[in-house]
C-alpha cells in the first residue's frame, strides 16, 4: 500500500499554506458525472502529480480550477487562501494559475522573445511595442529557469523540449504561482525530460507550485512529492510518492493488477525473416546488422537521436542506404519507395501516429483501408463496399477496437484505440515484418497493456516484429531480445531474461 498522506515525511502540506484547495467538486455533462465529489489540494511550491487514465476526470478538474468550466453548486474553491465562488479564465490567470497545454498554444512563426513576453502585447487599445523591453522580459524569465535560449530564434526552429521551456517562461512572465503541465514529456527524449524536470525543481524552489499531469509513471514518481489519483471521476486518494512503486500506482489508476513480467521467449530456432547486414546511411546510422525471426519481437531501444527512426525509414523504403544489404526471407531487397516496402511485406506504424499515421477527420473504416485500396476494389476499379465492410469488421473485432460505428471520425477515438486503428491499417496489408515505432506514446496504462497483448498475439501468429521504444521498460517486458542503439550504431544486445530492468536502464540512460 502506498501510505496515505503522512504529516511527518516528504512534503508537508499541513505546514505550508495551500496554493489551492478544492473540495466537493462535481461536474455533470449531459447526465454523465465527469467528476464526483473530488477534493484536491496543492501546497505552495509543491510539485504535485495528478494521475489517472484518460477519462478519469483529470482535464475536467484542471478546467474547473482554471475557470474554463463551472463546478456543480456546493464546491469549495480556495486560491492562495482566498475563497472564491466563481472563477473565469481571466480571474484564474489573475490569481496566478497558468496551464501549459499539451498543444502548447504558442506562436511558431514568432521569435522566442515575443512568445515569452506575449502577454505584454495584449490589450485592445494599440500601444507601441518595445522590442527591447520584450527581450528583457524574456531574458529575465529564462534566467529564473536557469535556461539560455536564443531570443531572436523563430520558435518553429526549436525542438519541442525548448518550446516547452518557452511556454513555461511565458507562464512566469504573467506571475504564475501554480502551473499545470499537461503531458509535458509526451514528446521529449530522456535527456530533454531530465532537463525539464530540473526546470520544475527550480520553479518549486522559487515557490511556484507545479502540477504534473503525465502518463509516464517513472517521472511522476521521480519529480513529485505527492500524487492525487483519480479514477472514473472519483478521488482514489492522495499519496506520498516516497515508497510508491510504478505497479502500485498503476493499480490505483486502473483498479486492476497488471503483471509486469518479462514476456521474452526463446526464438533462436525460428526462421530468419528480416536480415540486415552492415547497413549504413551517412549521418544517420552506421554498420547496423540485425536479424528478426518469425514470431519474434525484437526490441530496439536507445535515446532519441540514436538513429532508430532513421533506420526504420530505410527499412520501410523511404530512404536508401549508402551501403549494406536488407534481406527478406533470404532474398535481397532493394526498395525505391515505401510502396515497394508494402508490396514486399513490411509494415510500419509510425511514431507520430496523430500527424503521420492516421487521417484524423476521416472515418475509422476509411483509415483502415488506405493501404489496401487495390485489394478491396472490384474489376471495375471502384471500391467494393462489401469487401470494405468485411475487412473493417474483421479488424475491429480482431483488435478489440471500441468504437460506436466504423463511420465515426478517427479523431473521436481515445489514444489507445487510435493506436489500434493505426495497427489494424497496416496489419490489413498482411505483412511479414511489422515495425512498431514507439507504439504507446500518449497511450494510458490500461490501454498499453491491451496493445502489448495484441503485439504478443501477432508474434505468436508468426509475424516478425521490430519494436522500437525509448522507454526501456517497454522493450524489457515485451521483447524477446533487445538491441541497444546509440550514435547510429548497435552497441549492445541483451536477453531480458538474463538482464534486470535496472541494468538495462543504466546501460541506456547512462
Amino acid at each position: 500500500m502506498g501510505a496515505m498522506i503522512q504529516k511527518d515525511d516528504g512534503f508537508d502540506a499541513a505546514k505550508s499554506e495551500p496554493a489551492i484547495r478544492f473540495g466537493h467538486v462535481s461536474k455533470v455533462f449531459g447526465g454523465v458525472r465527469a467528476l464526483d465529489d473530488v477534493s484536491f489540494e496543492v501546497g505552495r511550491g509543491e510539485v504535485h502529480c495528478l494521475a489517472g487514465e484518460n477519462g478519469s476526470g483529470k482535464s475536467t478538474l484542471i478546467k474547473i480550477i482554471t475557470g474554463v468550466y463551472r463546478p456543480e453548486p456546493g464546491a469549495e474553491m480556495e486560491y492562495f487562501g482566498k475563497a472564491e465562488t466563481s472563477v473565469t479564465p481571466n480571474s484564474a490567470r489573475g490569481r496566478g494559475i497558468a496551464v501549459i497545454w499539451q498543444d502548447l498554444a504558442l506562436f511558431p512563426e514568432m521569435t522566442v522573445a515575443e512568445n515569452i513576453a506575449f502577454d505584454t502585447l495584449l490589450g485592445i487599445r494599440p500601444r507601441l511595442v518595445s522590442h527591447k523591453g520584450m527581450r528583457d522580459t524574456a531574458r529575465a524569465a529564462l534566467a529564473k529557469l536557469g535556461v539560455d535560449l536564443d531570443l531572436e530564434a523563430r520558435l518553429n526552429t526549436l525542438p519541442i523540449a525548448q518550446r516547452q521551456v518557452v511556454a513555461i517562461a511565458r507562464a512566469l512572465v504573467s506571475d504564475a504561482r501554480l502551473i499545470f503541465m499537461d503531458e509535458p514529456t509526451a514528446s521529449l527524449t530522456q535527456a530533454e525530460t531530465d532537463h525539464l524536470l530540473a526546470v520544475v525543481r527550480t520553479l518549486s524552489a522559487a515557490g511556484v507550485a507545479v502540477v504534473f499531469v503525465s502518463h509516464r509513471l517513472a517521472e511522476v514518481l521521480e519529480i513529485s512529492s505527492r500524487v492525487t489519483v483519480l479514477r472514473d471521476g472519483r478521488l482514489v486518494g492522495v499519496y506520498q510518492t516516497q515508497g510508491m512503486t510504478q505497479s502500485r500506482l498503476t493499480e490505483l489508476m486502473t483498479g486492476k493488477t497488471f503483471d509486469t513480467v518479462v514476456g521474452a521467449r526463446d526464438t533462436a530456432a525460428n526462421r530468419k525473416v528480416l536480415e540486415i547486414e552492415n547497413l549504413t546511411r551517412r549521418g544517420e546510422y552506421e554498420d547496423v546488422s540485425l536479424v528478426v525471426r518469425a514470431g519474434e519481437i525484437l526490441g530496439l531501444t536507445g535515446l532519441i537521436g540514436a538513429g532508430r527512426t532513421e533506420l526504420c525509414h530505410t527499412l520501410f523504403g523511404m530512404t536508401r542506404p549508402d551501403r549494406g544489404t536488407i534481406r527478406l526471407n533470404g532474398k535481397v531487397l532493394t526498395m525505391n519507395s515505401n510502396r515497394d516496402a508494402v508490396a514486399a511485406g513490411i509494415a510500419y506504424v509510425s511514431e507520430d501516429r496523430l500527424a503521420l499515421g492516421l487521417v484524423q477527420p476521416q472515418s475509422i473504416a476509411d483509415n483502415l483501408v488506405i493501404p489496401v485500396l487495390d485489394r478491396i476494389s472490384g474489376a471495375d476499379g471502384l471500391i467494393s463496399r462489401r469487401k470494405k465492410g468485411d475487412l473493417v469488421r474483421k479488424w475491429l473485432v480482431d483488435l478489440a477496437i471500441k468504437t460506436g460505428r466504423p463511420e465515426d471520425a478517427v479523431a473521436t477515438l481515445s489514444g489507445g484505440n487510435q493506436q489500434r486503428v493505426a495497427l489494424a491499417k497496416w496489419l490489413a496489408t498482411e505483412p511479414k515484418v511489422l515495425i512498431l515505432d514507439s507504439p504507446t506514446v500518449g497511450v494510458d496504462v490500461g490501454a498499453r497493456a491491451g496493445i502489448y497483448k495484441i503485439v504478443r498475439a501477432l508474434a505468436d501468429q508468426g509475424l516478425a516484429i521490430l519494436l522500437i521504444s525509448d522507454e526501456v521498460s517497454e522493450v524489457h517486458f515485451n521483447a524477446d531480445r533487445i538491441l541497444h542503439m546509440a550514435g547510429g550504431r548497435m552497441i549492445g544486445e541483451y536477453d531480458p531474461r538474463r538482464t534486470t530492468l535496472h541494468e538495462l536502464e543504466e546501460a541506456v540512460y547512462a
Partner: protein
Amino acid sequence: MRSFIRAYPTEARLFAVLVAICLFLSLASDSFFTLGNFASLLNNNSVNVIWAVGLLVVLIAGGIDISFAVAASVVQYLCVYAFEAIGGGGWVIGFLVAGGIGITIGFINAALIHRFRIISIVVTIATYNAMFGLLMFITSGRYLYNLPEWWTNRVTIFETQTAQGTWVELALPVAVMAGAMAATWFLIRHTTTGRQLFAFGDNPEGARRAGINIALMQFVAFGWMGLMAGIGGLMQAHIVQEVVPNALIGRELDVLAAVVLGGARLGGGRGSVLGCFLGVLLVAVTQNGLNLLGVSPFAFKMVVGVIILSAISMSNLKLAGLVKVMRGGR
C-alpha cells in the same frame, strides 16, 4: 546583416535575385541602368505596392482577399460621383473619401467573415463577383473621363535633369506608396495590434486562448486592406486620368503573387513590407527587362509565371534541406 538574413531569409534571397537580374539587364541593355528607367519603374508600380502592403496585413492575419482590385474600381466610381456632388474637392477630401469608402468595403468583408464564420477566400470571391456585377450593371460598362482637374493633373514630387538633358521625375503615387509602406511597417512591427495580427494568423486558437479580440483582428486586417485598396484606386485613376470599370480586374492575382513572392505566408503569421516591395519590384523589373530586350509582350505573363514558380520552389528546396539537417541533428 547576418541577423537580417536569419530573420528575413526570403527577403534576403529575393534581394539577391533582384540584384542579379538587375546586373544582367544592365549588361544586356543600355537603357536599363538609367535614372529615367528606375523612376518610371517606381512611378508605374506604386499602385501595386500600395495594394501589396494592404494585402500583406490580411495575409499576416491568416486571411486572403481577392476582392480588393474590384473594390478599388468601386471606390473610383463612387469618388467621381462624390466629388461631383460636393462640387470638386481636393486631395485631402479625395484621400478621406477614397480611404473611407475602401475601409467600409473592407469592413463588409470582415463582418461577413467574422459573423458567419466563412473563410476569407470564399467571402472575398463572393464580394468580388457581387461588386463587379453591380458595377458593370450600374455603369453599363461606361468609361468616365470627366474627372476633376486636381485629380488628373500630374503632381511631381521630385525632379532632376540627367547628364543627357532629359528630365527624370517621381510623381505623387510614389510618395503615397512610401507613406503606405511606412504606415504599414509601423502598424505591423511597432504596435501591439500589429503583433496581435501576427499571432492571430500564426495560431488562431492560441491567440483566442490568450485573450486576443478576434473580431477586432479581422476588422483591422480587412479595414487596412480596404484603406489601401481605396487609396490605390485614387492613385490609379490619377495616373491614367480616366475610370474604367473593368480596368483593374486581374491585378489582384499579380499583387497576391508578388506578396507571396516577398515571403508572406499563405496561412498567416509571416510577411514583411520590404518583402512586398521587393516582390512587386522583381516582377516589374523582369517585365521591364523583357521589354527592353525586345521580347514579345505576349510572352511576359509566361516568363513572370516561370519566375514566380522558380522563386517559390527555390525557397521550398531550401526548407527541405533545412528539415533534413534538423532531423539529422536530432
